[in-house]
Each structure stands twice: as C-alpha cells, then as structure tokens.
C-alpha cells in the first residue's frame, strides 16, 4: 500500500485514537479499572484472602492440626459457636483449616503463575523477536507441550516425584506457560516492526536494549492479564491434585479437605461445602481481576 495510507485521519479515527490509551499514567489505568465493579470485587476478595493467609497464625482460632480422635464429642461437629465451621472426622477445626489452607492455595497459585510467566515470557519474547529458526524451534517445543494433556502430566510427575508443595508449584508452573509464551510472542512479533523499534535500531541500539526497554514495556500486557487467569487456574489444579490425594499431606490444603470429606457429604455437609466455596471464590476473583485488567488496558474494545 502506498505510504499515503497513513495520511490524515477522519475525525472518527481521531476520536477513536484518543480513546485508545497508550503510554498514559497508572492513575488513568487505575481509574478505568476501578469503574469495573466486578473487577474491584475480585480484587477485594483476593486482598481479603491474602490478608487471611498472611495473618493465619494470628487469626486462626485453633491449631489446624489439633487432632481429637480420642474425644468423640469433638468430631463431626456441625457449625456452632465454638467452631463456626464445624470440625472434621479427626476433630480438627474446619475454620482454622480453611484459614491455613488459604496460604497453600495462594502460594501455589501465585508461585505457579510466576514460574509460568518467567518461562513463558522469556521463551515467547525470544521466539517473537528473533523469528526464523529459533522461533520455529521454540514454537515446536510449545506445540509439544500443548499436545500433552497437562493434568495427566502433572499427575504422573507428582506420582513419581512426590507431592511436596515445591514440586506441585514447579510442575504446574512448568506446564501452563505455553499460553503466556504465545501471547508474548505475538506481541513481540507485532512490535518488532513498529517504527519506534526501527528508530532505536537505526540509532544503534542492541538487541538487549530493544527487547527489554523498547518492546517489553509495550508487549507485556496481554501476558499480565493471562497471568491473572493462570493464578486461578493453578489454584484449581492444586486443589484437584490434593483432592485426589496427591498433594502435600503435611500442609493444609482446601483440596485435601475435600479429599477428607469424601464419603461424608450428606452426613457432614460443612466439610465439603466450605472448602468448595473458598476455592470457587478465589478462582472467580482472579478471573474477574483478569477481565478487569483486560478491559482497563483495552478500553476501546469495551466501548463497542
């Protein structure tokens, strides 16, 4: 197309451009995010749970590991004044376990998402920037990962290497990174040809400068949005692992609580309902944040 393509915009385009914020301050972005009630709700839930997790030793009414097998009067207690969420089959206070379980869920979720981000962003950036054979190699690697059913891969690895928290974090993180890589690659591919990048190259900027200081600050947003969604997904995966009994038995996990609740669903509803609600809440919260981030970063899409 002739270079005339870039000529005078119609007023519609002028208006559209003013709505598509590029490079504006955090305050602007925050204002847009704040307008999305659902996203703010999500953020509040996450903050609440994070606080609970951090303050667990302080606010937990009982020791979550306190077993009272001997004392039959303490087991399977329905929710009451002493135990607002009841007790489980070993007499442990459910509320305390919920509180401590928040730690595990959030830790695993955030760590897994962080690992995924680290690996995915790096590989995606390199693939998108260098293109050609390196891109092909990395993308084939990604494809390989995508063809393996992730959950079964995780199951297998955990079954072989054990379900310690560290293993679980690592294994989840190392299996969900392909989507981040793809997003990052797409952004890098598109930004690589932009004029301001050409300008930097013509000045003499090297690859490192261009990748980190020119492209990355612009390219990172879809990956961040994806990251938020991945936290939720990682929490779900961890819960599923624990539910199947493959998680870390030394830690309290909501998934494990569900595992404990197997068989007593009708008898002691509080053993499954409360952990279930918590998992749902947190995962939905992260999804809402992800949506909110997306809308706040791409306001034009929402307008239409």
């Amino acid at each position: 197309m002739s270079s005339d393509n870039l000529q005078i915009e119609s007023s519609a385009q002028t208006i559209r451009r003013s709505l598509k914020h590029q490079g504006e301050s955090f305050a602007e972005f925050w204002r847009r995010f704040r307008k999305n009630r659902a996203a703010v709700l999500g953020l509040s839930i996450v903050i609440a749970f994070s606080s609970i997790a951090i303050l667990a030793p302080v606010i937990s009414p009982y020791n979550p590991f306190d077993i009272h097998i001997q004392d039959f009067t303490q087991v399977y207690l329905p929710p009451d004044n002493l135990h607002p969420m009841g007790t489980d089959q070993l007499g442990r206070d459910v509320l305390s376990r919920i509180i401590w379980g928040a730690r595990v869920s959030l830790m695993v979720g955030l760590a897994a998402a962080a690992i995924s981000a680290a690996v995915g962003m790096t590989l995606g950036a390199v693939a998108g920037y260098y293109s050609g054979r390196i891109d092909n190699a990395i993308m084939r690697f990604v494809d390989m990962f995508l063809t393996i059913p992730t959950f079964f891969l995780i199951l297998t690895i955990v079954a072989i290497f054990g379900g310690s928290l560290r293993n679980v974090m690592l294994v989840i993180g190392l299996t969900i990174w392909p989507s981040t890589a793809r997003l990052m690659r797409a952004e890098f591919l598109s930004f690589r040809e932009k004029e301001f990048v050409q300008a930097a190259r013509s000045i003499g900027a090297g690859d490192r400068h261009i990748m980190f200081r020119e492209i990355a600050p612009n390219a990172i947003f879809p990956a961040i949005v994806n990251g938020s969604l991945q936290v939720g997904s990682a929490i779900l995966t961890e819960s599923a692992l624990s539910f199947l009994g493959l998680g870390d038995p030394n830690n309290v996990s909501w998934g494990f609580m569900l595992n404990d609740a197997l068989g007593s669903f009708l008898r002691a509803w509080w053993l499954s309902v409360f952990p279930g609600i918590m998992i749902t809440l947190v995962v939905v919260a992260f999804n809402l944040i992800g949506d909110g981030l997306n809308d706040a970063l791409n306001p034009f899409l929402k307008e239409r």
Partner: protein
Amino acid sequence: MPDALMEVKNLKKYFQVEHGPLSTYRGKKEFVHAIDDVSFTVRRGYTFSLVGETGSGKTTTARCVIRLIEPTSGQVNFDGRDLLSLNKDELLKTRRNMQMIFQDPYASLNPRMTIGDTIELPLKIHKVGDARERRATVMDLLDKVGLTPPSQYIDRNPHEFSGGQRQRVGIARSLASKPELIIADEPVSALDVSVRGQILNLLQDLKKDFGLTYLLIAHDLSVVRFMSDALGVMFLGKLMELGPSEAIFEKPLLPYTQTLLASVPLASDAMKRGRPKLKGELPSPISPPAGCRFHTLCPWAQERCRKEEPAFIDHGDGHYAACHYVDEIQQKL
C-alpha cells in the same frame, strides 16, 4: 561542487519469496527485485531525494543505506568507508553520524518512554556525556525544534501531543548525536496539511544551522521540489532518471517522469505538457519485464525497449536518464 558525503554503488536487494507447502510454486526459488543495481551520490550540504511510487524501492533503499535491512550486494561509501563492510562496533560508531527521521509520528516514538528519554537515547547509546549533560542537550534540542519551553515537554509521554509535535520530537532525536547525514523517510506525509509547512520550514532551517545533508524519500513532488537540490526517480527497483532537481522539473526526459509530474494535482500547464497516457498494469517485481522495466506501460515503447535494457547515460549537466529514445520523445513534444 561539494564533495560526496555518501556514494551508493550498485546496490541490490532481493527478497526471497516464501511459498507455502501447498502453493503451485513450491520449491521454486523466486525473488522480489526490490532494488536492482542502484547507484547515486549525495553531496555534502545537498538535499538529495529519491522519488517513486509504491514498489519503486525508494524506502527499501533508505533502509539499506542505514543498514536496517542488509542489502544483497553493492557498496555504500559513507565518508570514505564502505558501510556494508563494517563490523558491529564500527557500524555503531558510524551510526552516530547518520540518523533517520521516520514517517509516522504516531508509531515512531515509544509510547512508554517519555519524550526526554526518547531524544536522549542516541546519546545514551553512544555514551555521550553524563546524565546532567545529556538532559541539558535534550532541553537544547527541544528548543531548536520549536518545542518551547522545553520543560513542558521533556518529561511527558508522546500521546499527549499532536502529530506535528511528535514529528518535531523525532527530528530532535535524529539531531541528538550531531550527525552529518539525515535520512528523512516521508517526513511530512502523515501530517496535516497546515502543519506540513511548519515542519518543512524547520527542516530547511536546521539544514542551514547545522550544515546537514539530507537524503529525502518522498512521493509528494511538491515537497520534493521545495526541498531538493538533486533527485533520482525510481521505478520497480531501478533508477530511471537522476539529476539536478530543477533540470528534471523543467525538462523531464523520461516518459515515466513526465507522467509523474503531470499527475500532480494542480500541476502547471508546463508540467502537464506531453503527459503520456499510461496503459497496462504495473509489472510484477518478482519477474520484472525484460528490457526496459517501464516498457509495458510506456506509450512510446518500441521493439528495442522490449529486448534491451537502456543504459543510464548523461544527457548533459549531470542529468541522467535510462531510455533509448530520449531525444526522439523530446522532439515530439
């Protein structure tokens, strides 16, 4: 006549065409002849323009000269040294002396960097001065390109400014490392008409104040005429006509150039004189026509034009043209 600041010799750039696995051309090696043996000289202190339409290769030439794209073959002698033979470090040093202004003011500035950081970039990369000195230089540059007071601009982001202002930032950036040669790739095409004049005036002033040499890539002939001392007309990867700007505008020798000049809206009657009516479709750059590249469109085309590529010869006073029948056509007009 001033000496040559840059000499481009026999520059070629071929892009390989990629065919998908299902294409009928699979396996066949085809090349887009983006630039096919182009040579010209840019004299110190001059503004030399490359003119042409889409597909002429003028933008590719600019990018090859600054080595944003690596040419397939040829020489680019800049200040005595062949740019294409330099290694990374030497190239970096030479880059200080040769900078580029880009076309789209909305895309040529990093939206996440402040204007000050953008202009400072060349200084940082070439390690000129310390932070304080650099900032002072940036303020000075903002002043020189008409963005005053500089403090109102230096720490803000590009999106707060208009196209014209952004283009000034781009110009300031290109001046930061005190280059001798500036390659301006369609510097005003993307700007409003009323702003173009401001930027064109600015470019002329800066040229005088800093003793710059410009290589201008443009398709708007009015802009070219206003700015250029010499120009070259490109078509389908080849230089067809070259010479002093006024000579070409007064007496275009090539049918293609005549058509270009006559097609400018508001062309004067003198420019419209002898406008040949082009027929046929633009040939493909993958398999350019044999003989003269323009022959499929040229109303004067003869047998010889289909078979033999015309030589690029001097028709007096440095006015070169590649056409077999220059004199005959001139007589007919």
